[in-house]
């Protein structure tokens, strides 16, 4: 990479890039430097899971821009001082657009963003923002609600089990969405949760899944687990199972309920577009079915046609905004009314959720 473009004043450089992008219409704008995109991932990319889904999203950016972007991906980097140094090095190497794939990269990433206002940062799962620093999260609860409806139809014991990573709002609201969906079909269904405090601990995830089955659950939800361990346990034990981020159907060919997939491609492509146009604005990006980021697919064929029709209708309503998963009346675990009928839980309350809805048996870790 030559350094002349970096020496140009920032605004000029941006204008030039914008012109160059527009210039694609007339020529291939051979003069344009490719946009340097750096991706930092907490786990190996692998065939399934979190990092895999992020990588797929970036692949869409590559596909759209071809030689106009140059993506370098660094996987399996533990959060901590070393990750901070690597980010620093990425900035030093001239990367203009950084995708930080884990919550723990937040504080160091934000510092870098403040020091480098001409670069753009996307940060997974965090809550801090800056003008050039956008945290992004998926509204998993929207998809989980639909899964809950299917689970409620298929369960015989009326008990559902969740193996879950950390008790952060993102995952709590997903479990609550799942529970609300299930109880909208059958109010007798209850949900047990085991928090294993890890994104990646196959042994613990398997043990927890077996414990939930032993406790009577016959549908499992692998909540933010980066391995197919819970899914394989479900298949072996004959319990329906679903998970987030990317499809694990091949690990449970007969008992796979479906996947609440995240398709980051539209969001990543839009962000790169905005960066190139100089119009990127850092804000809390909270993306759901309406943004085509949360996608529910690979439905089990055991779901009745009736129920599938109900699920599809609900999918329409949620995606169009006619209905919201957190429409009242909402009760908490203690049976107290949180939101009365006719009202809707505010976004802030979902983003900071620290309570369970009625129907979740397990207490939240405090």
């Amino acid at each position, binding site marked *: 990479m030559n350094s002349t473009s970096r020496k140009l004043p920032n605004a000029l450089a941006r204008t030039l890039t914008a012109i160059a992008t527009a210039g694609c219409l007339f020529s291939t704008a051979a003069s344009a430097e490719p946009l340097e995109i*750096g991706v930092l991932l907490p786990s190996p990319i692998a065939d399934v899971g979190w990092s895999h889904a992020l990588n797929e999203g970036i692949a869409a950016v590559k596909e759209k821009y071809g030689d106009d972007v140059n993506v*370098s991906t*660094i*996987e*399996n*980097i*533990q*959060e*901590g*001082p*070393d990750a*901070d*140094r*690597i980010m*620093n*090095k*990425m900035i*030093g*190497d001239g990367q203009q657009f950084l995708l930080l794939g884990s*919550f*723990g990269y937040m*504080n160091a990433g934000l510092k870098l963003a403040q020091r480098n206002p001409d670069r753009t940062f996307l940060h997974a799962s965090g*809550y801090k923002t800056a003008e050039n620093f956008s945290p992004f999260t998926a509204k998993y609860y929207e998809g989980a609600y639909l899964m809950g409806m299917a689970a409620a139809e298929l369960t015989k014991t009326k008990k559902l089990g969740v193996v879950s990573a*950390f*008790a*952060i*709002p993102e995952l*709590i609201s997903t479990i609550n969405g799942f529970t609300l969906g299930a109880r909208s079909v059958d109010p007798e269904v209850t949900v047990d949760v085991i928090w294993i*405090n890890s994104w990646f601990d196959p042994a613990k995830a398997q043990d927890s899944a077996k414990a939930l089955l032993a406790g009577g659950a016959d549908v499992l939800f692998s909540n933010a687990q980066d391995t197919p361990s819970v899914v394989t346990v479900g298949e072996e034990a004959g319990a329906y199972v679903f998970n987030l981020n990317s499809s694990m159907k091949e690990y449970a060919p007969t008992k796979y309920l479906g996947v609440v997939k995240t398709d980051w491609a539209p969001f990543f492509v839009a962000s790169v577009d905005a960066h190139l146009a100089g119009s990127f604005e850092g804000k809390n990006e909270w993306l759901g079915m309406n943004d085509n980021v949360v996608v529910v697919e690979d439905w089990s064929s055991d779901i009745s046609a009736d129920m599938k029709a109900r699920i599809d209708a609900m999918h329409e309503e949620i995606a169009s905004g006619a209905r919201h998963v957190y429409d009242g009346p909402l009760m908490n675990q203690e049976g107290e009314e949180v939101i009365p009928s006719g009202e809707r839980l505010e976004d802030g309350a979902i*983003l*900071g959720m*620290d309570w369970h809805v009625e129907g979740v048996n397990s207490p939240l*870790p*405090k």
Partner: protein
Amino acid sequence: MPFKLQRREHASRLMLIAAPLSAVVLSTIVCSGLLFILNKPVGQTLYSFFIAPFENFYSITEVFLKFGPLLLIAQALAVGFRAKVWNIGAEGQMIVGAIAASSVPVYFVDSTSDWLLPAMIILGALGGMAWAAIAAFLKTRFNANEILVTLMLTSIALQLLYYLLLGPWKDPMGFNFPQTVMFQNEALFEPLFSGVRLNTSIAIPIIFTIVIWLFMERHFGGFKLVVGGLAPQAATYAGFSAKKAVWVSLLLAGFAAGLAGMSEVAGPIGQLQRSVTSGYGYSAIIVAYLGALNPLGIVFAAFFLAVLQIGGDVALVSANLPISAVHVFQGLLLIFYLAVYTLVHYQFKPIRSASLSATSDHVT
């Protein structure tokens, strides 16, 4: 012609110096071969590893940032290893040191007192020592193997850390993410230059190294410690205590590792979080051996490994090397060193047919 390994009468000074150097050369060669097979740019990777860390001022300060904790822990471990006390759990002692030190800013969130940092230093050291003391007690009282105990205590320390981060010490404004509050400036070491992460805590390993050098090389206590480990019975006759060797070795390591953990949370990290050690507790074992358990040798070894780790990070970004390749390089280094180190105490002798019967000192 067949060879045999024969014990030297005296350890070879030449080999003592040649061993780490040849380990470096051999692992570089093997690593280059692997890179070639992987179809990675060999020249650029070696450049990333050995030259890039010195390319600019920031990189150099980062090398010293890594050098500090490696040096500190390795010096203490080496004292124990010379006394044949195998403390593999510096990692855990480091974690508990970091926890103990973090209690100060966690419980005095709003304090701006000048005593915050000194209190953290003391608590960090005590925390590490307390954790190591468990292993020392079990070893001296029940003769429990310290390798297993220290290693397992590391797992327990990790669980303790997770418990605190998810429970009582969780940042109330942190949306349930497992981390404490960010520490106030008074609870952090001052950066040495503006804009870099290298901070005043670098003084600790340097002072510690001088003290260890004086203790081991110039003081009778160091000798007693070594004898107590090498020949416990002889030591007892001479009035030295093998138990004392265990206690001194482990407490010293706990002290150093605790301080290292404290320097991390009060330095580049600035809060207590799930990963605080960067694996220093384990890397320091490599450093101690690469430095031939010698205080001066360890200085060089710690510096070398720091360069290698910074270089590894550069290689990840600039040469697009996977992180496992960096680990392979570091592993090769230790294996080659241990192999070549044999030649410090042994030498190759050609076996002549006549002398075949007289190989009483043949190594088995």
